[in-house]
Structures are given as C-alpha cells and as structure tokens.
C-alpha cells in the first residue's frame, strides 16, 4: 500500500502528525528530516520537471529566510560583519536557516498533501458529516468552468456581431460593461434552471447522504499504529528537551540519535512505501 491508497482518515492523521512535529519541534535535525522526507516523496509522485521546479522553489524560500533573519535580528555573540553599524551574527543566520527549513518543509508537505488528497478524499473527510459542504465544494468546482465557457461565448458573440467595436476607450469600456451584464444575467438565468433541476431530483426532501466511501483496512490500522508510535516518541523526547536547539545568545543543539531516527522514519514512510510498491510492480511485470 502507498500513501494514496490508505483510508483518508489515516492519511490525514499522518499529515497532521508530520506537520505538528515539523512546526513545534524546534530542532535542525527535525527540519532536515522533514524537508528530505517531503522531497523524496515528491520525487516519486511528480514528473521530473515539476520536481525540479519545486526543489528550486524550496531552496529559494530557504535562502531568502536564512539571509533576511540576521538583517532584522542582531542577537548572538559571533558577529560576522557589520551593516550600518549593526551586527550580522552567525547565530541569527543559523536561526534563519532553521526557520527557512521549517517553512519550506511545511510548504513541501502541503504539496504532497494536495497530490495524495484528491477530490474524492477531501469530499469524504468533509462530506460525511456535512454533506451540504461537500455539495457546495462540488457545485463551485462545476460552476467555474461553466462561467468561463459562457464568458467566451458572450465575447465571441459580441465580437462577431461587431456592435461594440470602436476605437474610443469609452466605447470599449462600455463594451466590457455590456459583456459583464450579459454574463451576470445569463448566469442568474442558468442558476434558476440548475435549481429547478436540483429540486426535480429530490434535493431538499430529506437529509442528504454521501455516496463515496472508503474501507478502513487492516493495513490502515498498522500504518496508523506505527505513525502514532513514532510521532509520540518524537514528541515525548522533544518535550523532555532531548531534541532542542537554542541559538541565542549561544548555539546549543542537543539531538540524540534515537528520537531523531524515530522522526526520520516517520517522514520517510511515504517514500519507503512508494519504493516498495514500485519494486513490487517491476517484479510483477517481470513475471508477467
């Protein structure tokens, strides 16, 4: 099983665990594990081009934060150089590096989230308890392309009939207003029709249900158990100060190998699963 096959609730809990650890455990080891884990997973999920674009983006965000922090924070004991009489300190720089790592890790994990959580999963999470919200999501997503198509049709219609074509700016502004009003009225009109169609199909007769369902399998249980175990280990260690970093005024990093390993494994799970599946696939193909 890979991450996108698990039950939406298990994958949601997984993402929550990783994000909470990344945001609240302030330690370089955690940030590095998190970024690397997310990038490895993205490497498996995305095309090469997309991946390298993401990688570039991450590096830029990281560097930007790292360089900006010392410009505003002048704490620390090791000045590297002075700008306008203010110190650019090593501690502040490293603190920036940490902060940047944390930020880019969160961004990357959200990228993974959007890849894994397709529309059905999202609707399942929100739709089961509040089917109305699910309906709003799906209606909005259906409405936007309709509106675009209608806009094109109206523009074409107006352009071809040539009624509003003119050199003067005021005339052109008038033309745009015309298109806008036409778009509004046609949208309202078709909304009435859509409403009728919804009513005709029983909308509002009773409580709505939700069609999509996912099975919570044995694998989900194992996955969740492992995730929660690793997560709580990392959190407990972090709470007791075994994974922490102080930057001001002096750098003091304590990262013990065991808690670090716990978190590293947690972040690497999607990648490990992905590799396992692709190996299995290759193996199966070879047999076929």
């Amino acid at each position, binding site marked *: 099983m890979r991450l996108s096959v698990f039950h939406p609730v298990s994958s949601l809990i997984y993402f929550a665990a990783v994000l909470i650890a990344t945001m609240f455990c302030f330690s370089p080891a955690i940030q590095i594990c998190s970024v690397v884990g997310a990038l490895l997973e993205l490497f498996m999920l995305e095309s090469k081009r997309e991946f390298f674009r993401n990688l570039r983006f991450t590096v830029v965000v990281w560097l930007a934060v790292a360089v900006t922090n010392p410009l505003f924070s002048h704490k620390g004991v090791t000045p590297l150089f002075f700008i306008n009489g203010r110190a650019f300190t090593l501690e502040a720089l490293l603190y920036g590096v940490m902060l940047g790592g944390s930020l880019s890790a969160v961004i990357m994990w959200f990228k993974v989230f959007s890849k894994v959580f397709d529309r059905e999963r999202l609707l399942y999470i929100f739709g089961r308890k509040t089917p109305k919200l699910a309906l709003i999501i799906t209606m909005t997503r259906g409405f936007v392309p309709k509106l675009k198509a209608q806009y094109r049709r109206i523009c074409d219609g107006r352009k071809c*009939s040539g009624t509003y074509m003119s050199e003067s700016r005021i005339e052109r502004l008038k033309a745009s207003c015309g298109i806008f009003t036409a778009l509004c009225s046609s949208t309202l009109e078709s909304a009435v029709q*859509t409403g009728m*169609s919804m009513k005709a199909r029983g909308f509002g007769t009773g409580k709505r249900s939700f069609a999509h369902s996912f099975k919570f399998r044995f694998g989900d249980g194992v996955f969740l158990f492992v995730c929660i175990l690793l997560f709580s280990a990392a959190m407990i260690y972090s709470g007791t100060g075994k994974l922490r970093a102080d930057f001001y005024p002096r750098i003091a990093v304590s990262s013990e190998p065991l808690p670090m390993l716990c978190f590293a494994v947690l972040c690497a799970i999607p990648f490990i699963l992905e590799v396992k599946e692709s190996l299995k696939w290759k193996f199966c193909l070879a047999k076929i």
Partner: protein
Amino acid sequence: MEILSCEDLSFKYNGEEKPALDGCSFSVNSGEIILLCGKSGSGKSTLLKLLKRELSPAGEKKGRIFLFGGEQDRLSDREGAEMIGFVMQNPDDQTVCDKVSAELCFGLESLGVSSGEILARVGEMVGFFGIEPLYDRDISTLSGGQKQLVNLCSVMVSGARLLLLDEPTAQLDPVAAKDFLHILHRLNDELGLTVIIAEHNPDDIFSSCDRVLYMEKGRTEFFGEPSKAAEYFSSHGLAEFLPAAAKIFSGISDSLPLDVRAAKLKLEKGFKPDMTVSDSESPSGEIVLKAENLWQRYEKNEPDILKGVDISVRKGECLALLGSNGAGKSTLLKALCGAEKCYMGKITLFGKKLSSYKNGSLFRNNTAVLPQDPYAMFAKESVAEELRENASEEQIKAVAGRLDIEELLERHPYDLSGGEIQNCAFAKILLSKPKLILLDECTKGMDGFRRKELGEILGELKGEGVTLMLVTHDLEFAAKYCDRCALFFDGKIVSEDNSRQFFAKNNFYTTAAARSTKGFFADTVTPEQVREKLLAQRGADDE
C-alpha cells in the same frame, strides 16, 4: 395499466390573460412512448412541467392529474422526485456538480440513500448506458450530447418510472440526437419505461413512438397512433410535423409511410423510376468572400484545426457548410470574420484583405455573424432596448414585422424560447444592414414552422443581393434553402457542389428524401422535389 391521466387540465400563468393550457384530457398507459407535438408556445412545456410537481410554475391550475393510480397531490415529495424523471432542453443548466460521478450520485444522495446502495445503482445504470469512459471525467470537458446522456442517466439512477423530456435534443447535433433517442428506445424496450417526449424534429421518433399527442393553443387536439397522426397532420395542413417520408406522400396517397424503408417500398409499388437529371446552373456573380489555404490552431502544441481551407462565396448566394461535430466548422466561421486568427492563409472580403478592416469596420454595414448561442447577443432588459442600440424605431418596426417578433419586443431576452431568441438575434443582425451574413447553427431549437419562415426570409435576403453562409447540421434545411453545400472534413473542404447534386451524390450523409429515392429518381433531395415528380407521373397517368 394506466400510469398517468389528466382530466380537464387547465392552467393560467400569474398575470397572463390567456390560459396556457385549456382543458387537456388524456391518459397514458405504462410502457408507452408518447411524442408530444405542437408549435412553439402551444403549451407543451407547461404541460410537462405540471406533470412534475417540483417544476410546476406559479399560476392558477384547474382540473386533475392522476399519477401511478392516485392523485398527484397524494404522492410524497420523495416518491415524486424518485419516480418521475425530467430532462430539460439545455444540457448545461441541468448539471449541478463538477464530476460525472458526483452528478450521477446527486439524486440518490439527496434522497438520503446509503453509500453502498448508491454506488451499486450508479454502477448498474452506467453499465446500461455504456458511459463508463465518462465516469471519471469533469463535466465541463464533455460534449453537449454526452452531457445530455449523463443527465438522462442521473435521472434514471433514482429509479424513474415515468420520464418527461422537454425537447432534449434541441441543442444537440443530429448524430448525438440519434444516440440519445436510441438510448431512450432501449430504456423503453428493456425496462418498460414510460416516456413522454416533446420533440421538434419528428424524423427519428415519429415511426417508433406508440402514440402522438398534438397540442394547439393549450388544447390537446389529437391523440392517437402515429399512422393516424400522420393522416391528421396531412389533412389539417400541418405537414411540418410529419417525417420527411410522410411529407413526400402527403395528399398523394392515403396511407402515409413513416420511415425511409416504407417510403421506398411505396415508391417501387406505385411509381416508375425516372433517372432524368434536372439542369443545374453554374454559379456566377462576383466573389464576395474568398479564403485561400487557411491554417489555424489554438495552442502551439495542439493539432491543426484548419488544414488548408479554400472557400469562396459569390454575391447573392447561400452556401451551407456541413460536417460532423467538433470538426472545426465554427472555427472556420470565426476565422473568416477575423474573430479567430489564422497563422497562414489569405482572406479577402469584398475585394479587400481582412486585415485592412480595422476596429470593427468590417462589421459596420458590411458583415454580420449570428453566433451559436444567440442569448450572448443580448445584455439589455428587453429585446427592443437591445435593438435600439443601432437602429431607429421605424427600422425596428419594419424588421420586427418581417420576422414576426412584434410581440416579443418588450420581453426580457432570457424569457424567450430557443426559437424565439434566434429570430430576435436575426433581427438585430438585419438592423446593421449587412451585405454578408454568417450564421452558426441558425436552426437549432426551431420547430418546422419557424424553420420554414427563416428559410423564406433567407430567400428574400438573397433576392436583395445579400450573401449568406451558414454552418449547419440540418441537412433538410440545407437541401431546401441553400444554393451550394460544402462538406468540411479533416480541416479541409473535401467536396463542394450545388445542393441538389451534393445530396444526390451522397449515400448516407444526405436527406431522408434523397435516401428514399436513391436509385429511383436521379436528383430529388427534398420532399417537394419528389412530390413534383410524383404529381407529374400521376398527371401523365390520368391523361
């Protein structure tokens, strides 16, 4: 078993003087297909909407409706939604969701059915319709015909036993319309579904329906089997409601054939073959629009839509551009008036290069285009206000009289039916006094009578020296009213001829009249031309 009956049903819209329905009485048995005929505004839509309580318009209703053996009011909301399915004209307006899968589940979700049952029933129905390939697609990427199939399927998923369809194929091309009607027949044959369908184009459904219900001015004037209906229409001057095969023999023979097969048999039995070819004129007159070697594509990496189109239209003629859906006919039309750019090729209009018309001067008293969606041309509160944009009161009056739209002038554009808005859009175009008119699917949503009126107006315009070019799916219309036809295929014009020769030459892509007389008469392509020959033979026999 009786599934539906109306007793003396009358209906008046709020604020209207005339009743929309005036004493309709009829009953429908379970498992029948009923074809609902009538001119635009005869009350077909009103009747269908009254039968579906959720869609009933506001107004004053008299008389009684019985559904499934009880009065309509006794059906619960849930039963009403479940058992009566309704499909409307515009495929876009009916869809609610973003994905086909969500759309199909919508009805059952609204009724609160459990997840497992929803998926099972959707799976079953998708299999029956054969639309598995569409299941995961976004609705916005489907064609009109596919959308309409999804709409029908989503209604059927809820377990409809009575299906009401209000001109479901009016916005579809003929091939998609045929597919849609085919599925309807299968639903009727294999599931015993009762169907009531209002349709403009009788050709595909007239012979295969069980009974025809004809409405006029809100009254049910005729209700009976298709063969009787054909006789009724033929004897009451309503030939426009007849399928082409029956039109040929209307007034010539007593029993009317309803499809091409029957028409062929009847010809062979009672008439002599005649392969003399009528004279044809070769086109003359100055060339108004000329395009050479046009190449166009929308995006850099997409395939070409136009691949070297050559076309020319002469002054005062009417050229029909035919071809299958999505072939690029509309793109060509847009390219010809400069709304879409070509990356290669040359277009000349009235002897001047297209690019020399700047800032819309092409459209000032020169060229006009009627777009596929005529509603797009209207942005004002009323039709008259829109027309006043570029014309005086007197001009509007004259054009309105000509197109028979005086009554519609004060109405809001969106309150008009598909056929009516076409006429209003056409009026708007005529007011700009164009010398060349390009029309995109101008007969869509029109009934036979409106089509005939439009055809006659096109004829008059030609007489005034206006040049016409239309993109259409409507082969019967092209055969009757256009001088030349061109077939657009694979990004090129592959054949071009006088209408008569064009349709006589084709075997399948041709009119019902031409198919009925293939190998019997040389070049009769409209019912009128066949009738002429038949009447001539009759005359000769009598002497």
